[in-house]
């Protein structure tokens, strides 16, 4: 395998793994914040236990989001230093802001939320989960500003072979970034909603004694998933207006438009193959849109069915369906990213820097080492983590460590 293919494979696999976890993080954080708000206002023990149970699942998932994200941040400099040297003065600013205004606060406050349970004032504790949720959104926002710049570079000038940021406002207002941010954010809510409903359906199918707990959870999950599916599709539709002509041509599969896009690129950049891999674009786009239709149908019907208590309690076929739906939004998410990123090829920064010119001058041995090490470690950890997520989901609200009160708490003494 060529060194560039190895670097791309590593990026695709680590980014894919990262996104599987962060999509659920974004969606579930929102739902946990909503539940904890209700718990804090009402003081209802069911809401309190829901906060702890869904919060525990959120944290199990969150850990993998962090560790895959670390590799994402560093591999730009490791494998793609051609990109950071050429465009880092522009899109690096968005990455820096992501770490400063978003992740730093998100992670610091998440630690406080987890370990400060039963220690902090309950309103302060509630404020923490909302800050964690909003900074997670901010994180997605700045990452998509960076990605939007690569898709549709704006707000820069080319000086001495490097880009310089001239218009920060234009970079932030970039439609290719803004529309994608809302598309991804709503998609994450779909992921979180289907997850919550699916896990609840598992317990309802098993005739759980926690009827109230899981009925409320199922209704919340589906109640969020249906409007979020609509909005995701709306922003996805708007996104077609911001796409590169070659990506649209590849999606449409029309030979004339592909030839037109190719001819236009040849006129600008000289001879070469300037088209994205058509099969990848078409397959991923079809999968994403097909699954959207499925999710819309299931969430639409489910929102009606969940109004009737006996149905929520006893309709096992529907419980099975909701359980089987858990992975569907994840697959749609990944298909969406493949569509977006494969459709941008052969460009790293569209029209400015080719992917093949963005590589670091590393050896094939180094690349083989990093790709095999990251893939092995993340495969093992993902399997373990998903097993734990499923295990915790199956054990139910009775076995949650998060927010547990310590049995014997001696009087603490100051250490500094």
């Amino acid at each position: 395998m060529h060194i560039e293919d190895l670097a791309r494979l590593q990026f695709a696999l680590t980014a894919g793994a990262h996104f599987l976890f962060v999509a659920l993080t974004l969606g579930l954080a929102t739902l946990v914040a909503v539940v904890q708000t209700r718990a804090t206002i009402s003081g209802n023990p069911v809401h309190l236990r829901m906060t702890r149970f869904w919060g525990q699942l959120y944290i199990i998932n969150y850990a993998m989001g962090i560790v895959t994200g670390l590799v994402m941040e560093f591999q730009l400099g490791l494998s793609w230093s051609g990109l950071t040297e050429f465009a880092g003065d522009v899109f690096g600013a968005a990455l820096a802001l992501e770490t400063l205004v978003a992740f730093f606060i998100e992670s610091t406050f998440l630690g406080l939320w987890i370990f400060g349970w039963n220690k902090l004032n309950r309103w302060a504790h509630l404020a923490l989960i909302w800050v964690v949720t909003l900074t997670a959104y901010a994180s997605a926002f700045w990452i998509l500003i960076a990605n939007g710049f690569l898709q549709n570079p704006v707000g820069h000038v080319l000086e001495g072979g490097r880009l310089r940021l001239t218009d920060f406002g234009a970079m932030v207002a970039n439609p290719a970034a803004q529309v994608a941010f809302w598309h991804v954010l709503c998609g994450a809510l779909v992921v979180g909603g289907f997850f919550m409903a699916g896990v609840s359906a598992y317990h309802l199918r098993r005739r759980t004694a926690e009827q109230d707990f899981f009925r409320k959870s199922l209704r919340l999950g589906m109640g969020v998933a249906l409007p979020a599916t609509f909005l995701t599709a709306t922003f996805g539709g708007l996104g077609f207006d911001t796409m590169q002509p070659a990506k649209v041509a590849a999606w449409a599969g029309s030979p004339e438009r592909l030839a037109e896009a190719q001819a236009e690129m040849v006129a600008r950049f000289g001879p070469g193959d300037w088209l994205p891999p058509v099969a990848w674009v078409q397959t991923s786009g079809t999968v994403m849109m097909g699954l959207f239709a499925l999710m819309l149908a299931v969430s639409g019907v489910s929102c009606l069915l969940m109004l009737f208590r006996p149905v929520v309690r006893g309709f096992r076929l529907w419980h099975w369906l909701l359980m089987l739906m858990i992975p569907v939004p994840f697959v749609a998410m990944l298909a969406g990213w493949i569509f977006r990123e494969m459709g941008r090829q052969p460009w790293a920064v569209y029209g400015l820097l080719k992917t093949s010119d963005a590589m670091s001058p590393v050896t094939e041995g180094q690349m083989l080492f990093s790709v095999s090490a990251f893939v092995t470690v993340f495969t093992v950890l993902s399997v373990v983590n998903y097993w734990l997520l499923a295990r915790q989901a199956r054990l139910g609200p009775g076995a949650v460590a998060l927010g547990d009160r310590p049995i014997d708490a001696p009087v603490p003494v100051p250490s500094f």
Partner: protein
Amino acid sequence: MEIFILAFFALGYLVLAGADIGVGMTLPYLGRSAGERREAIAAIAPFFLGNEVWLVVTAGVLAGLFPALEGELLHGNHTVIVTLLLAWVVRDMGLWLRGRVPGARWQACWDGAIVAGSWGLALSWGLLPAHVLLGIEGPAALLPALVVAALFATHGLAFAALRLRGTLRERASVLTGGAGEARTYALTSVALVAVGVLAGFRLPLEPGTSGPLLVPVVLVLIPFLVAAQAWVWWTFRHRVSGPSYL
């Protein structure tokens, strides 16, 4: 100004996260039983999330303010950086996973991941200045790396002595005999800062062009970031009184 911002976050990382790396390295010494190890981990548990983000921001600052250096530093030390990342990932997952399933073997396995990952992190951090500062490559670089790793371990013990009680506190104060815990921590902090500053002097710290835009934003943000961290330090200012969530 760009250089001060980079130094602020990089040195903050070394001092703060250096302590939880050190506790991870000395975990088999501090905690002889599963219960003791859990208590030793409780010394760093509320802090490690907030500590490691200093490195995440350091990398973000590199990407935004020093993009050319970022590429050079990372791919120029490709194998060390990849090892560092793997060690970081393994250690973090050890911390998260150790308490998820009851059972001695499960916990011993992930405690092993914490120890191995912490040593991997410390040694990788030692190899970087050996490359950058002293220009040593190959097996000879392990010698300065071991010195840096020993510094991390000592720093971790100093922090553990500040946070733990009873037997665990006594074990952590083995190097100081229990006197001047805060002074020892200050001393190891200064030593880590010195290593960081010396390594920094050898780097080609040539800022990119986004400084005029980014620097004021970062300067406005820093007080808020420090305040958020100070809230964590204040909330968990007491000595560990029992096991934590991890």
